[in-house]
Structures are given as structure tokens and as C-alpha cells.
């Protein structure tokens, strides 16, 4: 934590170009054992899958689709079960899931962040609303499935509603905790310096809660995928959850695994995007943490 007293050194350290830094990190990563251990780990898991299913044909494992079957299907120009990276249907499933996620996630953020901020900021508001919030929160989002189907017509809205609900709870709660986590001396300092209540909200409460908000959004995007899959499996047309469930019904097992892996990749990418956005908006925090490492 201890930094140099000389202001010039700390100023210049932050001016190292980010490209050079990335190259440096990459080369030191390649020199460490980490990438090779990682590859060994992947290889071990794949080998276990391959041998247990396709070579040794262990009981139970033999019913599962093996890696050869899955990857041939996935990357084939003429897939046997009709689903590969060359078929438009594959992208339609991904696209529809992504659209539902985007819609629910943005709605949940647009409503959850302001609600969380006000819950944390105004004690009166919190005393009224929070108990109600806590009363509804223990009900698992997925238990809402039938009620959502009853309340919203069609098959699209219930799925989006479920996804929204999961995200909304995570975002609101974390935003509220973020406001509560702000050191009291920051808002006191702002009042001392002549900021009124609204200015304090804008300059202290919102940026101060930002780290928690983004933690919340990370969780939110995770639970959004979680409930989306459940929603798509129970009701809905198209989407990756739907793909997995129908492939099971139609006994097209390799497609199940393709769906699962795709979900993993897409889910990981979306949460990485949220993280990158967070880092971009919180330069102060990135720089602070970067210095803390050294």
C-alpha cells in the first residue's frame, strides 16, 4: 500500500501504455507454469470423457454422447442432427436467448439500480419498502413459473418476466448494500463542503455505490441465465434452454451437450462484458487496485 512520497513517480507509473502492460503480462503469464497446467487440466477432463464413453464404454457413461460425436456434429457442414456452427438454426437459438437476456437485464438494471439507490439513501423509504422486498425475495424465482404463465399471455413474456425477476432482486439488493457500505465521512465531507442533499446523492452516493452495483450486475447476469434456461425449458419457443430440452425429448443427445457448452461460452462472454464495462466506468478503482498489487 505504501507509495512513494514523490508525486512524480506515482504520476509516471500510471502512464505506462496499456498495450505494453498487456504484452508484459502476457509474456510473464507464458513464462509461468499456469498456461501449461491449464492445458493439462483440459486434456485430462476431455480424455476422461473420451475414454469412459467411447473406449472403455463404462456402464451409464456409455449412454452419454461422446466427445467425437459431439464435436463432429458441432463443426460439421452437414450435421446429422441438423445443428452445427454452419446451420442458421444454431444462431437463431443463441440470438433469441441473447435477446431475452438483454431485454430482462436492461429492464432489471434500469429499475433495480434506482430502487436500490433510494432504498439505501432514504431511511424512510427503506423502512416502508424493504420488508415487502424481503418478504418476496425468499420465493425462488423459478417457483414463479406457473404464475408468470397465468399472468402474462403468450410464451415469450413469462420467460422474460422470470429472467427479469431474478436479475432485479440481485441488482436492487446489491445496490442498496453498496449505498450502505459508503463510509459516512464521505457524505459528511460533502455536506461540509456545501453540497446539498441532491448534490450529495449525485457525487457521493452514486459513485460510492458503484463497485457494489457492478458486483450486483455480475450476479444479476449470472442468475438471469440461470432462470432463462429454466424458463425456456418449461415454456417458450427457441432459445438454448429450449434446444437442450427438446433435444432430450427427441433423443438427439449430442445437441444437448452442444447447447450446454454454448450456454457456458455465451454466459461467460456476457458476464465478461459487464465486468469490462465496470472497469471502464471505475477507472479510479482499477488504478487503485493495480497499485495495490505492486
Amino acid at each position, binding site marked *: 500500500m505504501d507509495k512513494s512520497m514523490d508525486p512524480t513517480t506515482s504520476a509516471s507509473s500510471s502512464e505506462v501504455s496499456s498495450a505494453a502492460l498487456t504484452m508484459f503480462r502476457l509474456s510473464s503469464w507464458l513464462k509461468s507454469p*499456469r498456461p501449461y497446467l*491449464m492445458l493439462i*487440466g483440459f486434456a485430462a477432463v476431455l480424455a476422461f470423457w473420451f475414454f469412459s464413453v467411447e473406449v472403455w464404454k463404462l456402464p*451409464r457413461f456409455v449412454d452419454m454422447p461422446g466427445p467425437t460425436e459431439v464435436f463432429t456434429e458441432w463443426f460439421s457442414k452437414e450435421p446429422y442432427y441438423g445443428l452445427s456452427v454452419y446451420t442458421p438454426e444454431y444462431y437463431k437459438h443463441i440470438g433469441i436467448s441473447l435477446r431475452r437476456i438483454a431485454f430482462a437485464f436492461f429492464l432489471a438494471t434500469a429499475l433495480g439500480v434506482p430502487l436500490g439507490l433510494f432504498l439505501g439513501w432514504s431511511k424512510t423509504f427503506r423502512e416502508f419498502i424493504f*420488508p415487502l422486498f424481503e418478504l418476496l425475495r425468499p420465493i425462488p424465482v423459478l417457483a414463479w413459473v*406457473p404464475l408468470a404463465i397465468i399472468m402474462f399471455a403468450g410464451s415469450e413474456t413469462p420467460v422474460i418476466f422470470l429472467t427479469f425477476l431474478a436479475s432485479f432482486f440481485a441488482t436492487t439488493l446489491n445496490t442498496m448494500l453498496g449505498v450502505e457500505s459508503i463510509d459516512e465521512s464521505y457524505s459528511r465531507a460533502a455536506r461540509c463542503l456545501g453540497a446539498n442533499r441532491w448534490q450529495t446523492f449525485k457525487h457521493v452516493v452514486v459513485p460510492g455505490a458503484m463497485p457494489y452495483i457492478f458486483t450486483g450486475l455480475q450476479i444479476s447476469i449470472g442468475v438471469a441465465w440461470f432462470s432463462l434456461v429454466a424458463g425456456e425449458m418449461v415454456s417458450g419457443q427457441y432459445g438454448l434452454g429450449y434446444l437442450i*430440452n427438446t433435444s432430450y425429448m427427441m433423443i438427439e443427445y449430442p445437441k444437448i451437450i452442444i447447447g450446454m457448452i454454448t450456454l457456458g461460452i455465451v454466459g461467460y462472454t456476457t458476464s465478461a462484458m459487464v465486468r469490462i464495462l465496470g472497469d471502464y466506468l471505475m477507472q479510479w478503482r482499477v488504478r487503485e487496485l493495480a497499485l495495490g498489487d505492486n
Partner: protein
Amino acid sequence: MNIKNFRSKLFSRAALRGLIAIAIFLVIWEVGARSEQLFGYRFPFLGLVPPPSDVFVSWGGLIGNPSYWQSWYMSFLRVFGGFTAAMIIGIPLGLFMAVNKTFYGMYFPTFEIMRPIPPLAWVPASIIFWPTQELSIAFVTFLGAFYTIVINVLGGARSINKQYLQAAQSMGASQWDIFRRIVLPATLPSIVVGSAVGMGITWEVVVAAEMISGGGSSGGGEGGGLGFFIWSSYVGGSYEQIVVGMISIGIAGYFSSELLRQLGGLLTPWLKTR
């Protein structure tokens, strides 16, 4: 003193305000649900939901029904099974990853790649793999809690203040002593947090798995669990029971997490003194 505190809390302004908000919520729900009878116009969304009074009447009728309690029992059993398995496998795995760098380097990336796959996406594969439906539900439930527990244990064990370890070494502690007396207790708070979060996910997963797989036990029906109770109420058209089921799961989930938190509080008494 304690009782006095409790009572002053119970009758405080905050509690009153909370009750007012909940009461308003219930009134809006009741009026909204009965809007067709009251105003001749059905409110959007709310107009399609059963009113709370009907829900409570229906709940009253179910209290004496053994198959309702059987659902509770089945769900609890599944949650308990999957959760215990996740603890038994997840805690040692997390600790081992924290202490063994090679193992961590090999399997943590794999673990991180698997983690974004939602547990429910495993349902069909799980049904194919496991011989009985009960086991496949247990497996998916296990997965739900597993990731959270491992991540929390790993994070907790890796963030132990190095000075504690050095202090123990300088006092002549053996490797086992260090593990048993430093690493384990220092990780305990993270284990508690991970378990409480994992318990919440477990309930989510059980409910969904019961809905998707149609009650688990062959033929569904009596031994279906609360998730199936909701689903069969939906299929059977008794909408009040859906809400009863939702509230029941909420209560069950809340008390499971609360129980874990209390237990965790007992295991980590040093955290209480600020």
C-alpha cells in the same frame, strides 16, 4: 434487557412502516385480483391472479392434508441430500485447491469454464446419466450449491493473512496443525457464507428440477415435492394452490438459510465482537 430490546424493535416505527407497506400490498393484490367482480373490468396482470383471501382459505384446507406435507418432506430431503453432497465434496476440494498450487493450476480453469453453464441445463444430461430420476435431481441440486461453496472456500482460504501462518510456524506448529488450527477456522466464515448462498440456489434448483422432471418419483403424484406441487396445481387449474406452493417454498427456503446462518454464528463466535 434482551426481551426489552426485542419488544422495542417489534413495536418500533420501522416495524410499523413495514407492516403498513405489506398491508397495502395485500389490499392492492386483493382488489386487483377481484377487479372483475368489483369494477366489471379486469386489471392487467393482477386480474388474472388468485386473491390472497382465497389463497389463505385454500392453504387452511391443505394444512390437514398429508400429501401437502409429503411435498415439503420430499423437497427437504432432496435439498438436504444435494446440499450435503456439495458440502462434503466442495469444502475439501476448495481447501485443496487453495493449498496445492499445481492442482489449482490444473483444475481451476476447467472449473471456471464449467461454472457459467446453469445447473438446470444439466437436467437432461443428468436424467440420461443417472439410473433413477431421484438421483438425477439430486445431482443437479448438488451442482447448484457446489460451485458457490467451492468458490467461497477457495477465496476464503486464499485470503488468509500470511502473518497468521508465520506466527504459527514461529511457535512451532506442524503443517497439520497449521491446517487444522489456522486454515480451517480462518476459512470457516467463508464456508458459512458460501453455504448460506448455496442453500438459496439449492432451493431454486430443486423447485425447477421437480417441475421439469414432473415430480421426480415415477408417476409424480404424491411424492412430488413442492415444485411439483406448484406445477400440478397449475396443470390442474387450482391457481390458489400455486400461490400456496410459492409461499411454502419461500418459507422453507428462508428457514433453511436462517438455520445455516444461526449454525454458522455458533461456529464462528469471534465474528460477533465487531
